[in-house]
C-alpha cells in the first residue's frame, strides 16, 4: 500500500532511475514495477513524471534507448545506461550520501544552546 507520507523528494527521481537501470536495460513500466516490488509498494513513482525524466536523461546522453520485442511480441522502448550515465550515477550517489549524512548529523546533534 502506497505510503502517502513517502512522497518522492524532488530531484531523487533521476537517482532512482539511474540506479534501477544500472542493473540492466528496462522499459519504463518495468522500472516502475521493479521499484514498487523492491519497496513493497510503499514508494510509488509518479508516472506522469517518469517518461519526461527518462527522455531528458536520454537527451543528455546518460541513457540510450532501443526498441525491443518483449516475450509477448510487443514493441517497447528499452532504456540502457551509457558510460556517461554511469559516471552521472556515481555523482548522484555521492550527492545523496553527503545529503543524508548532513541530515543525519543535524538530527543526531544535541539541541541548540
Amino acid at each position, binding site marked *: 500500500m502506497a505510503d502517502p507520507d513517502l512522497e518522492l523528494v524532488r530531484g531523487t527521481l533521476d537517482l532512482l532511475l539511474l540506479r534501477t537501470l544500472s542493473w540492466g536495460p528496462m522499459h*519504463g*513500466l518495468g522500472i516502475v*514495477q521493479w521499484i514498487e516490488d523492491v519497496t513493497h509498494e510503499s514508494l510509488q513513482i509518479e*508516472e506522469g513524471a517518469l*517518461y519526461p525524466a527518462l527522455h531528458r536523461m*536520454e537527451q543528455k546522453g546518460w541513457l540510450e534507448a532501443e526498441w525491443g*520485442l518483449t*516475450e509477448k511480441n510487443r514493441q*517497447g522502448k528499452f532504456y540502457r545506461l551509457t558510460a556517461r550515465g554511469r559516471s552521472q550515477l556515481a555523482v548522484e550517489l555521492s550527492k545523496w550520501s553527503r545529503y543524508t549524512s548532513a541530515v543525519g548529523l543535524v538530527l543526531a546533534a544535541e539541541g541548540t544552546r
Partner: protein
Amino acid sequence: MTRHEGDWPARRAFRVKGSGVREDVDAELRFHLEGRVEELMLKGLSREDAEAEAQRRFGDAKRVGAEVEVIAGSTKRRQNLGELWLAVIRDARLAGRGLLARPGYTTVVIITLALAVGANTAVYSAVRSVLLRPIPVDGIDRLFALRVDMPKLELLNTQLSAGDVVDLRERKDVFEGVTGVNASNMTVTGTGEPRRIAVARTMGDFGVVFGARPAIGTFYDANASQPGNHHVVVLSHRAWHELFGADPAIVGKPVTLNDSTYRVLGVMPRDFRFPRTADAWNPFPLSAQSLSPQRRGTLNMTGVARVRTGISEEQLRSQIRAEMKRWKERFPQSSYDDESVYRLRPVPLTDFLAGQLRPVLLVLLGAVAAVLLIACANVGSLQLMRTTGRAREIAVRAALGAGRWPIVRQFLVESLVLATLGGALGVAFGSVALGALARSDVARFEVLHDVQLDGPVLFFAVAVTLMSALIFGVMPAWRALQVNAQDALRGAAGRSASAGVSRHRFLQGAVVVQLALTVVLLLGSGVLVRSLSALLTADPGFRTEQALTMQVSLPSTRYKRDERYGLYDRLLTRLRALPGVDVVALTSTVPFSDMLLDSSPFNVPGAAPLPDGQSRHANAIAVSPDYFRAIGVSLLKGRAFTDDDRAGAPPVVIIDEQLANQYFPGESAVGRVIDHFGPGLTVVGVVRSVNQLELGAAYKATVYYPYAQMPFSWAGIVVKSRLPPASLAPGVRAALREIDPDLPLYDVETLSNRVSGSLGARKLAVGVLGSFAALALTLALLGTYGVLSYSTSQRTRELGIRMALGARPADVVNLVLRGGVTLAAVGVLAGVVVYVSIGSRVLEALVYGVSPTDAVTVAIGTAVLTFAAVVACWLPAWRASTVDPAVTLRAE
C-alpha cells in the same frame, strides 16, 4: 519469474522507417498503459476497472505525451545530425581514396579550381580595398565629394571655392559637416635635412566629416582657419615616426614649416589616410579676401560633406539645387541656377577615391566571374564524364538497397572535397598574386597598398568555393540518380539512349558556355590591348624624350615676391652650365605631375559678354622663356617670352591653341588684351595645346605667364640634355645646394616616366585581363577536346558499324569533326553576341582610340578561337578513324 515483462529485450525491434516522434511517443505510452492494464487484470480487476485504474495512476496522458514529444524531438534531431556527420565523414574518406587513386585527374581538377578561386579572391580583395572600404571611416556611405561641372566651359569634375564651402556649411539641415581640403607641400626645416612634406590644408568641419580622432592629442576645428589661429598642425603617423622619432611628448612642440613656427596639436592613427599622401594637416587660413565674391571663381578646395542620416542621394541633389537658387539670388550676375553652366554634383566618396581604378576593377570583377564559371563548367564536365565509369559501382550500391540519397550525398561530398582543396590552394595563389601586385609598377596607386587577405576576403573565398562545389557537383549527382540499375549491371549503361542524351546535352552545353565566355574575355582583352597601344603612341602635345623634371620651392619668409626670380635666374644660369645640358626651363606646372593647376576666370575687356552669364575660364601656368623649347611645343603665332619680359615691363601672356579657338575664333589673338591674373595682359603669342594630366584627354584653355612677371613660390625645373636624363639629378642637386643649401629638391622624375606612368591602371587592366583570357582559352580548349574525345569513345560501336559497312576513315573523321565544329561555332557565335551586346558597353569607359566593337579585333579574336577549337576537335576525330571495326564489334 517477476511480473514485469523481461528486463532484457528478447529481440531487437525495428520501428517503421519514417515513423515520427509523435508515433513513437504514443507507442511508448500505450505500451506502458497496456502493460499496467494486464498487470491489474492478473490481479483480478475487470478490463474496464483495470483501464480506469491505469489511467488514474498515469495521470494526464495527453499532457505527458506533449511534454515528452518536445524532448524526444530535440533528441532525435541531435541524433540525426550526428548520423549525418558520420556519414559525411565516411563519404569524404571514400572520396579521398578515390581521388588519390587517380592523381593526374585530381591534380588537374584542383589546379583548375585553385586558379579560378585564387583569381576571384585577389580581385575581390582589390575591389574591397578600393571600391568598398578605401578609408577606415564610420558611415562612409554618407560621405560625398562635392564636385563642380561647368559643361559649357568644358570644365568637368573640378573643385569648389572656399566661399562655396562656407556657404554649404550653413545648411545644417542637410549636412552634419562640410569641409574643404587643399593639398599643398611645405618644407620642414630644423630636423636635419630640409624635407618636403605633403600638407593637407583644411577648412570647415574636417574632424566631423572624417571622424578624425587623433591617436595622440587633438584635432583643430573650423575656427582655427581664422587668421592668427592657424599656426597649428596635426601630424600623420608616418611623419611622426620619420621626422620626430615617435616622440611621445610631441604635443605642444613647435615645428618649422615654410620658415614659420607651427605648434603640434596631435598625431593621427596609423590607418587614417585622407588625403592619401598627407603627412600633416593644418588649417587653411581664411581671410576676408579669400571669401570675397571675386574669389568664388578660384576653385581650389576638394569639398567633402557628411550628409545627415535619412537623407537620400536624390534628396541631397534636390537640396543642392535649391541652394543654388539661393546663391543665384545673392549673386544675380552668376549662373548658379543654370545647370548647363554650373552644376554642383555630389559623388559618393568611395567612387571619388577609386577614381581611375573603378571601371578597371568592375571589368576585372566581371572577367573573374566568367573565369569561375568556365572552371566550374570544365570540372563539372570532367566529373560527369567520370560517373559513366562509375555507373556499375552506383548500380551495385543501389541494388543493395542503399537508396538514392546516400549516393547523391557521396557525390556532393566528393565535390565539396575537391572544391575545398582547390579553394585552399586558390587562397594561397591569391595571396601570392596580391603580393606581386603590391611590388609591381602599379603600386604607384597608393590605394592598392592596403589590399590584403583579411577576414571578409577569406569569407568570400569560402563562399565562392562552396558555390562552385554546388555548380559543378549538381550534374554528376543528378546523373547518379538516373542510373538504371539493370542496365548498369549488364554493362549497357553507356548505351542507354535517354540517359545518354541528357548527359551529352549537358556536356555540349558546358562546351558552348566555356567557348562563349572565352570569346568575351578574348575580345575584351584584345580591345584593351589595342586601346593601350593607341595611348602609348598618343601625342600629349609635347616631347617627352631626354627630359628630367623636378620641383623646388621657396619659403615665403626668406624669399619675398620680388626676390624669387633672382634665385630662379641664378639657378637657371648654373644649370645651363652643366655638361651635356641643352635647355633648362621653369614651369609652375610640370605636365603629368601633381603640381597645382587651378582654373580661374578671365575677362576680355570690350568683348561681348558670353551668353548665359558664363565666365571664361583658363588655367594659369608661369614659364621661363625657354620652356616651350625645352618640351618641344611649337609656337603657332607671335613670339615666345624673352628676358625683356621681366618684372616692371608691360605684362604679357602667351595663350594656347585651345583658348584661341574657344574664345577668339577666326581671328588672330596676338595683340588682344585680357584680364586674368591681373588686368591688361597683352597676348604676344599662341602655342600648341598640351595634355597636362591625361593622355587622350581634351585640351583645357591655358594662359602662360613669364616667370619673371608671375614668380610663384615654387617652380618645376625641366632639363633637356643629350645625356641620359636620370644621370643629371646629382648635378642639379649640387647646383641648387651651392645657391641655397636649405632648399630641398624633390619629385625628381623623367618626363617620359611621368607620361607612361599615367597609364598604370590601363596596363594593370590589360595584364590581368589578358592572363584571365589566356587561362580561359586553355580551359575551354581542353574542355572541348575532352568532351569530344569522350563522346567519340562512347560511339565506338556505332563508328565500328559504319566502317564495317564501308565508310572510309576520312568519312569518320568528317563525321566527328562536323559535330565538334558545329559545337564550337555555336559557342563562338554566342560569345560574340554576348560581347557585342553587353561586354562592349562595359568597356566603353576604358577604351581609347578604338571602338569596343572594333571589327578587326572581333574578326581576329573569333578566327583565332575558332581555329584553335577546330584543332582541338581534330585529334579525337582522327583517333576515331583509326578504330578497327572488327575489334569494337567483338567487344560486346
